[in-house]
């Protein structure tokens, strides 16, 4: 989205520019839906309306409504920040580790990657001592293990550590 927008006076992207960018993004999603619907056919088939019929019209409504939202967004005078850069930095500094965490789950398993996430998060944002961070980081996955695997019989992804321990 339009993070690259030039700042309008304050330290951060202007709300108007981000809003315009996000509106365009929503319209893009609507267009994707229309394209996908056209690929499978939007007309009348042997079993009534074809598979693309419904997504075609929902996509069309998205695009049309987006046009109105876009006009409204452009008409709104410049003013107000979307968020200040440091605050956005905070947001990104959650998204990045969360994404790494999610990508690591298939390899390390749910428990180990969760422990690493909790410890790193506490250390970075909370500035806790290593000892306390690691204690919480181990306690939570262990509690989750008992709750899910033992009591409610729901298996979670496991990695090398769990294999080594025999699960």
């Amino acid at each position, binding site marked *: 989205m339009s993070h690259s927008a030039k700042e309008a006076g304050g330290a951060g992207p202007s709300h108007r520019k981000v809003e315009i960018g996000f509106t365009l993004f929503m319209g893009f999603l609507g267009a994707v839906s229309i394209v996908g619907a056209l690929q499978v056919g939007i007309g009348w088939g042997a079993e009534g309306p074809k598979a693309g019929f419904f997504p075609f019209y929902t996509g069309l409504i*998205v695009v049309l409504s987006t046009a109105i939202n876009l006009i409204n967004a452009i008409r709104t005078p410049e003013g107000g920040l979307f968020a200040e850069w440091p605050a956005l930095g905070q947001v990104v500094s959650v998204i990045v580790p969360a994404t790494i965490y999610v990508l690591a789950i298939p390899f390390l398993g749910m428990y180990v990657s969760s422990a690493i996430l909790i410890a790193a998060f506490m250390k970075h944002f909370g500035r806790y001592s290593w000892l306390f961070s690691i204690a919480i980081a181990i306690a939570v996955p262990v509690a989750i293990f008992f709750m899910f695997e033992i009591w409610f019989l729901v298996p979670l992804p496991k990695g090398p550590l769990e294999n080594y321990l025999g699960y």
Partner: protein
Amino acid sequence: MIEDIGNLFHGFAVVVQPYNLVLMVIGIVLGVIVGVLPGLGGANGVAILLPLTFSMSPTSAIIMLSCIYWGALFGGAITSILFNIPGEPWSVATTFDGHPMAQQGKAGEALTAAFTSSFVGALFAVIMITLVAPLVASFALRFGPAEIFAVYFLAFASFVGLSKEPPFKTIVSMMLGFALGTVGLDQMTGQLRLTFGFTEMLNGFDFLIAVIGLFGIGEILLTMEEGLSFKGKAAHINAKVVFQTWATLPKYWLLSLRSCLIGCWMGISPAGATPASFMSYGIAKRMSKRGNNFGKGEIEGVIAPETAAHAAGTSALLPMIALGVPGSPTAAVLLGGLLIWGLQPGPLLFVEQKDFVWGLIASMYMGNIVGLLIVLTCVPVFAAILRIPFSVIAPIILVLCAIGAYTVHNSTFDVLMMVVFGILGYFMKKTNYPMAPLVLAIVLGDKAEEAFRQSLLGSGGSLGIFFSNPLVSTIMILGLIALFWSVISSSWAKLRGQAATAA
């Protein structure tokens, strides 16, 4: 009617089995925790805890899940009053007078009033459900595809007309929900669509992933941006305060009744608990003799929104039970649960799954009584949870969200989608797009589309089928009125304004 009462007592017999009672208490406690923690709300709290119920019988499962929901409704009030942080959107209005009361050292009174009025609102709505739901269901059994589509149309049109977000933003998020819901296998033709060749997309987007991402991850991102620091008031609540407050409550009966009615109305139409609480607060402020004192710690300003929010939250389950159309995102998650446990939601439930339906209704009564007792006795414990710093809570919530997303289909791709939905949710919240219509559209997309296509198949492609008999026409016209409600009401106001200047 008599038969229904018999069924209800049978339902109570199911609910008071020790195993179910334990689940009920666990559900309420988890629910209050979910309601107290920022980033975990009713909808995604229930979604995350849904996998815990996979190995249970449907009746036990719904008892636990609905109790999580009651607990979350109660929990929102605690954070609003003590910390001035609404744990849930519907408790925003409670902060207006609840927190000033706490600052004046009347936290106990405010909490007691909030919990008790929540209880009253919920009880009113449950009684209404008990009386009305079987009638609605037996009526709805006669619906054909056109009528079913008309009901969906009414539900979604009310969103556009009643939500406080700009109507075209509501439409965009709703229609994107429908589009997301169509991804994957087409139920009617067995064709693949909108997958663009990605095998991960074959199963489509599960709305539970969307709920956990939009409401859970999105909320954490917002909280990180705002850099919340919790500074709360201590909770002193004891039996004396409770009874003293209870003694003053009966004189507000008219206020309570009005709030109950507002709540039930807003809950059944999918406007939901949040607008209900604001509307009830606004009307109470206008009608009350002490209206000027609202916002400075007036007990009426706590009673009105809490009663309405709980009445709305509870009555949102009426269309879910009777018609299979959820009135709120949380009701949608419960509906998703029904499908996972192998039950087909809709009017037939009342015929085919008597135990389940009446067990659920009985658990609404019991759950709220148990909930009231638990929150009144354990407030300090729950308040202590909020004192845990966000840097500890946030990664734990992230982990719980990831587990919840994974367990829906045992797929790690879903967990990645959850993060994507989280980022989407952050931007939607910041740019004022409502998220509830998107979620409901993903849930109901399949069924709405099926009803629509079957109707058109029956009529040979003519849209006239939706106005072909009095019943379907009435529902469609109600839907159209709801859709254009903001236009109608503003032009009505303009007309009256013109008439006034002309005269």
